């Protein structure tokens, strides 16, 4: 079973994303911000990381950058899921190493479809 690290400082969003992913057959671990996510990622394996952008302590782009520097996560798919949609932010995400950028509100079925295409 594939494992996904779902990162968002909003409890309601974490619950909704986790519910969607578990319903689709994924194992999900939640993190409340980028720093929490990095600590969890360092101690176990994940097939994909799905992260919000605007979070305290370490944001989504910062988390992406740190994960890409970690030997375990050089090629792990990292999707940033956020309300931010500016080209500038998307470029910053790409430069940090993000695999993709999805804008909230999102269609749960579309999210599963995109994950299905990129997960290893």
């Amino acid at each position, binding site marked *: 079973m594939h494992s996904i690290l779902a990162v968002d*400082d*909003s*409890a309601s969003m974490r619950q909704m994303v986790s519910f969607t992913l578990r319903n689709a057959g994924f194992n999900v671990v939640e993190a409340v911000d980028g720093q929490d996510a990095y600590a969890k990622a360092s101690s176990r394996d994940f097939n994909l990381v799905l992260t919000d952008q*605007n979070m305290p302590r370490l944001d989504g782009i910062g988390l992406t950058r740190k994960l890409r520097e970690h030997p375990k996560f050089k090629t792990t798919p990292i999707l940033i899921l956020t*309300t931010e949609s500016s080209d500038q932010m998307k470029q910053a995400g790409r430069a940090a190493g993000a695999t993709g950028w999805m804008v*909230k509100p999102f*269609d749960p079925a579309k999210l599963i479809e995109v994950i299905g295409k990129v997960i290893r």
Partner: protein
Amino acid sequence: MNTHTQETAKADAGLDLSQFYQVFFEEAGENLDTMEKMLLGIDLAAADDEELNAIFRCAHSVKGGAATFGFADVAALTHQMETLLDKLRRHELEPTPPMVDVLLQAGDALRAQLARHQNGGQGQAVDTEVLLGSIRALAAGQAAAATPAASAAPSPAPAAAPAPAGKRALELLVGPLDTPDAADNLIELFNEIVDLGSIEALDGGQDLAATHRAHIGPATDHPGDRHD
């Protein structure tokens, strides 16, 4: 404005998003409390970057949830707030008292919007047209709209003495209530808390929508008003 789209409460995959509403409402309330506290304590002459970022994140978080769960009016108002707050945190604009005031008013309007959604959308929608215009103007580097933001109450509030500088006056709306007398002791309970402020019932404290309305102002300096 269609304030809530039923269609967005369910997804193509049959996901009923309404199961997450209560967590969203609680979380949004916490974010609004945090945002208000930080706005009231902000040093306009030396606003801290992390503080401005934190205030932005409060509005951003409410916006994200509101957009996801279909609360269009909440999403629209927080989007405008976010635009202004983003410029502040990027130092494209400097924070000013009118900006703080309008953001505080927006927080109050958001609470009213959220309360209405929690109550199944009953009651009159909160009119935020003037407030949205003020926020847009401030975000564009202009002065806020001349008229004050709309109140959450369904009928106009009577004139009240302006609050002293650094203090706020609020209109409290309690209800709709299942039993109108459920808030009968509101005035007495408020007055039992020392230095909380002054409270005055409006319209006899009850209107046709089974709500209680009261005006809350800053605490007075009259020793005789204290309840020890």
